[in-house]
């Protein structure tokens, strides 16, 4: 069945696997995923999920699917300087990991924080058990299958039962140039009663040639564990980005999931919290700032599969120029998931003359004894009365407007306890987001 083109790709996959010295099962996993990718139909653009997004942003035409990278001594020095706030760092540039380290005391507790390729060699059993088996399956959709075939880089974070890591860990993916497609994969396994924070940043400066990022983040939060994950996306204007982030929550576990997005050309992400056991709690915060012709599209799922589960979502966006933000937010309360509490809230500030928002908050409820299930969405411009009030106290219109936007986003940042608890890191994220406001 293999035609010449896919045969070439198949060889590319075999080379990629050999380069990472992967065990046979992982190569088979990639090849199987490639066959899935070839069998599955691409979106036509008429699907509800896709009708507002340009499907050509998925194109692989002219892109290198694996780009090796090196780290300059200068950048390496910079990373060492910046590590202080973190308990460990993994840095990926283009398709390769270029830097990683972790505080020794964490390693002594059995914590694994390393790139996924090394993990597959050093901890084959753990990886084989958790990698794309539970949170995100290769068959989820065509471009997840592609990711499963071509993934390279990313991080593996394993926290043994009962271990609490006080300082956040840090993973970074950067691009040195255009013309590249990257497929970073992050897998977090927080065993029973453990606690951990991971802050992941994806970013690059604006390039001339188009690039593509197709990331997958899997988060397994076992019974009683606590995971805080913050993804910061600041791609250059030449990058189209598609991310699949999916967390599965065990009994009494807690997840705090933050997404801070300000970059990219087309940036589309799906974000699922699967509350699979009683007492699970998920708090999701999204903060987005788009300008120019940026298109951001987010699909969220708060999936209540068990009784007594709680989820809360807050999305805030500030849109300038011709920016367009789409939010499809689904809350699903399954049969038997009684006494559940779900909330969604979307607040959108339109600043640009041609800025647009499409907000589709959906509720699907099959259990009657929900404690509360609600959603709200608002779209408005900067309040003229607030502006007037501030201008009457001597601020220029621009300064007043900036202060309002600043306050609007800061309210969202304050919901991310993972950032609040570590002021240095919180400030750097805040600086980056609010710098765009200026």
């Amino acid at each position, binding site marked *: 069945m293999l035609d010449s083109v896919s045969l070439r790709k198949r060889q590319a996959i075999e080379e990629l696997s050999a380069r990472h010295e992967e065990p046979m099962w992982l190569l088979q996993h990639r090849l199987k995923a490639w066959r899935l990718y070839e069998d599955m139909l691409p979106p036509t653009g008429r699907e509800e999920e896709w009708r507002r997004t340009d499907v050509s942003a998925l194109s692989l035409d002219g892109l290198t699917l694996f780009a090796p990278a090196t780290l300059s001594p200068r950048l390496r020095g910079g990373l060492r300087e910046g590590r202080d706030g973190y308990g460990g760092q993994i840095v990926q540039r283009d398709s390769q990991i270029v830097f990683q380290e972790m505080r020794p005391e964490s390693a002594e507790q059995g914590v694994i924080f390393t790139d996924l390729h090394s993990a597959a060699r050093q901890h084959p059993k753990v990886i084989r058990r958790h990698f794309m088996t539970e949170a995100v399956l290769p068959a989820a959709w065509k471009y997840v299958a592609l990711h499963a075939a071509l993934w390279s880089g990313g991080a593996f974070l394993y926290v043994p039962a009962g271990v609490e890591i006080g300082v956040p860990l840090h993973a970074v993916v950067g691009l040195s140039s255009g013309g590249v497609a990257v497929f970073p994969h992050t897998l977090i396994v927080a065993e029973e009663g453990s606690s951990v924070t991971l802050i992941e940043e994806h970013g690059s400066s604006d390039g001339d040639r188009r690039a593509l990022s197709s990331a997958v983040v899997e988060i397994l939060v076992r019974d009683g564990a606590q995971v805080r994950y913050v993804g910061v996306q600041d791609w250059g204007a030449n990058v189209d980005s598609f991310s699949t982030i999916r967390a599965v929550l065990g009994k009494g576990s807690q997840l705090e999931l933050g997404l801070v997005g300000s970059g990219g050309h087309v940036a589309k992400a799906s974000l699922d919290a699967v509350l699979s056991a009683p007492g699970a709690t998920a708090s999701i915060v999204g903060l987005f700032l788009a300008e120019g012709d940026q298109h951001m599209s987010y699909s969220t799922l708060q999936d209540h599969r068990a009784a007594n589960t709680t989820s809360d979502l807050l999305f805030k966006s500030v849109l300038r120029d011709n920016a367009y933000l789409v939010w499809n937010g689904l809350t699903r309360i399954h049969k038997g998931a009684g006494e559940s509490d779900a909330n969604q809230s979307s607040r959108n500030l339109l600043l640009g003359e041609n800025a647009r928002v499409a907000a589709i908050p959906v509720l699907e409820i099959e259990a*009657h004894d929900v404690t509360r299930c609600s959603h709200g969405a608002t779209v408005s411009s900067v309040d003229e009365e607030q502006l007037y009030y501030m201008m009457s106290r001597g601020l220029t219109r621009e300064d007043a407007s900036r202060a309002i936007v600043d306050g609007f986003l800061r309210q969202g940042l304050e919901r991310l306890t993972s950032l609040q608890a570590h002021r240095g890191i919180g400030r750097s994220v805040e600086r980056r987001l609010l710098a765009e406001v200026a």
Partner: protein
Amino acid sequence: MTDRKATEMMPDSYKWGFHDEARYVFRTERGLSRKVVEEIAGIKEEPQWMRDMRLRALEIFERKSMPNWGPDLSAVNLNDLYYYARASDRPERDWNEVPDYIRSTFDRLGIPEAERKFLAGVGAQYDSETVYHNIREELAKQGVIFADTDTAVREYPDLVRRYFGTVVPPADNKFSALNSAVWSGGSFIYVPEGVHVDIPLQAYFRINAENIGQFERTLIIAEPGSFIHYIEGCTAPIYTTNSLHAAVVEVIVKKGARVRYSTVQNWSTNVYNLVTKRSVAYEDAVVEWVDGNLGSKVTMKYPAVYLMEPGAHSEVLSLSFAGRGQHQDTGAKAVHVAPHTTSVITSKSISKDGGRASYRGLVKAYSGAKGIRSSVRCDALLLDGDSRSDTYPTMEIDERDVTVSHEASVSKVSEEQLFYLQSRGIDEQEATKMIVNGFVEPIVKELPMEYAVELNRLIELQLEGAIG
């Protein structure tokens, strides 16, 4: 389970489920074809333009696929329906001339009393043709036209031709195309400039024969500064195979005019009720849709308002009750084309006995629609663990100078409320009834008294079945 519950849940005990033995002067063959459409136009002796429109619509219908984004329509067999049936030869104005067996059906629905007490005019649709029509003299004197749409095509051809299909074009969706091809009956209302019609105009629609689709077409034109309240309500006999009701309603509300359109839908639970209702509102016009959906197997209905000029305001009140085997997929659309327009959508739904109530709506603001305000509020009540409630709102906002909000909540009848009422000696069934009544009250109170009474009675009947 009490005896009462058992009998009330049986289909043949459906309160308005009686039916007369149908006697038809004429009906077309089963299924849809060019021949059937030409026959319908021929029987009605329609002008060429209407015949052409029907045939064009048929082509569009055949091209379009079934909507796949909502309820399951796989059981709708469009080839197994009769598309036209006429029970008496011409519309009657005098009640005494209406054939006895049709009158007896209406008697049981209480139409003559309602008319005596309350109504300005009655256009009651028995199957596909209006058989009874009466307008009070003073309305006719004011220049108000209230006719069945077939009559209007003959007697007011210029008016009908000018507006027909301008708000809901045949190509809008598969079922508006179907309606445009085979429509029959429905109301035509024309209110001249400045005329206020103080009493609601009302029509009953019924489906009476097995496998007869009903495709009424209603067109309302409110000239500047006028006011009209139109009420449609329907009850239908129960049959064993699925019936289809695919109506199209077009409402044109000109500068400063106000139209209120109220519906109490209680089709029997084998009917697919797939309706396109849309209005256009010009400068300072007000459109109000009050839409109560209690019956049918599946309803897909989203009354829409296009706010075309500054100052236009729309208000939709939607109430749905989904019981066993029912899927109410209802909602509203507000499309802000012009600046300084406002819209309010309030939706209340109740699901019980495995029923599914879905709110589906759209708020759209076009670029340039500055200073618009829109507010949407959806509340859902789930009465048991087998039932389901969904909310599918879409907000497409292409203009920054707007204030748009959407809020929805889903709850159960709260234990605390029940406990409070029970502690005051009210039994659980009565307490639940009170809570549900309170829940739907904001919408029910907008209906004329007789409809409010009927709606409350219907809800109570459904609740008694549920609580037992």
